[in-house]
């Protein structure tokens, strides 16, 4: 199977680094990183990744709006929301907007990979 390419979207460098490590260790290729919703949509169009991890609360454009635009652009886009505990209503809104699935911070690497593998059908 070709290496899966992931786009990591989060406004916190800390979270991006953490996710990057998780994906890299699991054999994914990190195609790109975005720190706001605007950049996320642009990078998605440019990089066409197999998977997007999307923070919700970000500057310029929220993860929900970015997800909506990404899914409009590519209805098969796999977008996994990274939400914090207590953000369930936002996650539900993101699902309505077309998000594939979600993970809840704080997460462990295996939690992230379990969700990712499940939605990618691996």
């Amino acid at each position, binding site marked *: 199977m070709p290496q899966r390419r992931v786009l990591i979207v989060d406004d916190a460098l800390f979270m991006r680094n953490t996710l990057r490590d998780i994906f890299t260790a699991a054999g994914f290729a990190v195609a790109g990183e975005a720190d706001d919703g605007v950049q996320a949509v642009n990078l998605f169009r440019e990089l066409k990744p197999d998977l997007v991890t999307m923070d919700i609360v970000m500057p310029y*454009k*929220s993860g929900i709006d970015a997800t909506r635009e990404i899914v409009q652009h590519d209805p098969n886009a796999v977008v996994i929301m990274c939400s914090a505990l*207590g953000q369930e*209503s936002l996650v*539900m809104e993101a699902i309505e907007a077309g998000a594939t699935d*979600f993970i809840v911070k704080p997460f462990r690497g295996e939690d992230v990979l379990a969700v990712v593998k499940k*939605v990618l*059908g691996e």
Partner: protein
Amino acid sequence: MAHAPHKYLHAFVAEATEQLEQLASELVRIEQEAPGGTLWDSIFRRVHSVKGSAATIGLSGIVAIAHAAETLIGKLKAQHARPERTHVDLLLQATDALVQEVQHASGTAHAPRADEGAPLALAARLAEASRLLPDGVPAPPPAPRIAAQKPVADPGTPRLDVAFSLSKACQAPGARSLIVQRKLKGLGVLLEMDPQPAALMQKKGGVRVTALLATARPTDEVRAAFEGIPEVEEIEVRPAPIANAPSPEPQAAEEGGAVRAVPDTAGTEEARTDATVRVRAQALDQLLDQAAEVLHGIARLREAARHLPENAAAQFEAEIDRLRRTARDLHSRVMNARLTPFSSLTERLPRAIRDLAHRLGKEVELEVQGGAVELDRTVIEALADPLTHLVRNAVDHGLETSAQRISMGKSVRGLLVLSARRERDKVLVEVSDDGAGFDGERLRQRAIDMGALSPDRLPEINEQQSYELAFLPGLSTRDEATDLSGRGVGLDAVKSAVEGLGGKIALRSAPGKGSRFTLELPLSVSMANLLLVQVGGELYGLPMTRIVATTEYDLSARGGEGFEARSLAVMGQLVRAYSLAKLFGLPSLAPPGPRPFAVLEVDGITFALSVDRLAGKKEAVLKPLFPPIDRIKGLAGTTVLGNGRPLLVLDPRGLHELAEVSQRLRGAA
């Protein structure tokens, strides 16, 4: 707990610190801004971002405070009104507590916190404040769009009973079952789902959900659809008994557009700047040191080239010139990378001024000019305390209370202006207020009382010169320093901090009209870490970059007093030892017996210098030598100590050359 620190702890600390600084200044601004702006969104986002990262590291105190603060912020935003001061105070307090928690996580993690329960207590107070607030006016709970509408399906389509359990570990059962619901809707007409996803929000995992699906698809296909959904187990799909088919009911109107919980904040943010990367300040310092080393190396090469034969020298020097231009360019680029805007200093001040002014019953308007003017990071860092002091001083002593101002016909709000502007290779920073000004008479009197000014000199001193007396140590025009601006730091400390940076400070004042401090600062400075050593009763600085070790050795035991040069075993290596006092022809005041040595390395050669005393370390701004002492071998520059005294910084390479010369002379004699 013996946890290894999180790999990205430093990234978290840097980001969180920045977010919290911005948060504090935005909280101060929110009190002044008209309600309905987007500032609350930014405030929310900052708290939220810190919470998310903290949760991943497992910093539960931060998560508790941030979560409760987030809830309160949401409530306050929904009020669509200017927040009350008590709420802003509470949120500022939460910000301070978060800063403390972050600091705790960053370094002093071994020291126990004063009160382990403090974060929870603060979180409880935040929660209580949220609870007491009425729900928002247009009640904006971000209700998901799962309307209680009853769908209809062709009665002829087979019905399937679907049941599944959400795993116990599921942290968002509402969202999870919404994903299942979406999946089922994609397979047919979902007639029933119980409980509805919205009803599972904020609930625990482990719930059993049943659904009735009208679909022509086989049960296996429906069951297979669950395979891509995490946290769902015990899936059952089977044909439903006919009686289960519900009668069609009037369709509820689809709920209007869901309320946007996270409004698009585009346009509210400052214009996007060029792409940046975060670099550790220390890395930039090292780069700068190394760029300076390269320049020094080139200067030495040029010196060495003089001994080359004429024909070879020309080409060599041309190459060296080219290299030097590149190295200079590199050096100035690194210098520029270290530049930090003046605004980074002033961002925290509105908060300090607000708190202080409130306590003193004063109204203060702060105006910052030239926030974009850039200064060397070292200058910015060293200026933080003095500037805060000047500002506090102005609010505390300079500006009058509102009542006094009204009676004097001044505007109610005192004006405090902080400005920065560039003038050639200097930056002028000014702190001015339109308050009462300094009292020249009182300053003169205090200076005489303290014995700092002789009464016969009184006639020589004009009014402006009297104001400069305020910089004398221990001179305060108030008999008792207030705890607000006093803090044992006087204007003398501000003065020596500015001078320590190689700058100057001046004070202009006019009675009843106000005062103005002008700080003249260098655009860039080079810092050096120094080892302070004492010889012959004087302190000298040795650059730490050249120090390999310090040690103690009793040479007198091996040959009596008066040694010139001997060898010393340092880390298994025999190195030459010299007496620093002898090299400079100074008397050594140390008693016989063991002496401290500084072990240095220059150009791969290690040698030791005996001194009378090691007097600690110091980070100082290095200033070039001035004539005629710039001709003395072994000196690198000067700096000013915290107490205002100058200090000579020694040049290890020059010292080594000096030592070798004296060695040869001795050998020849």
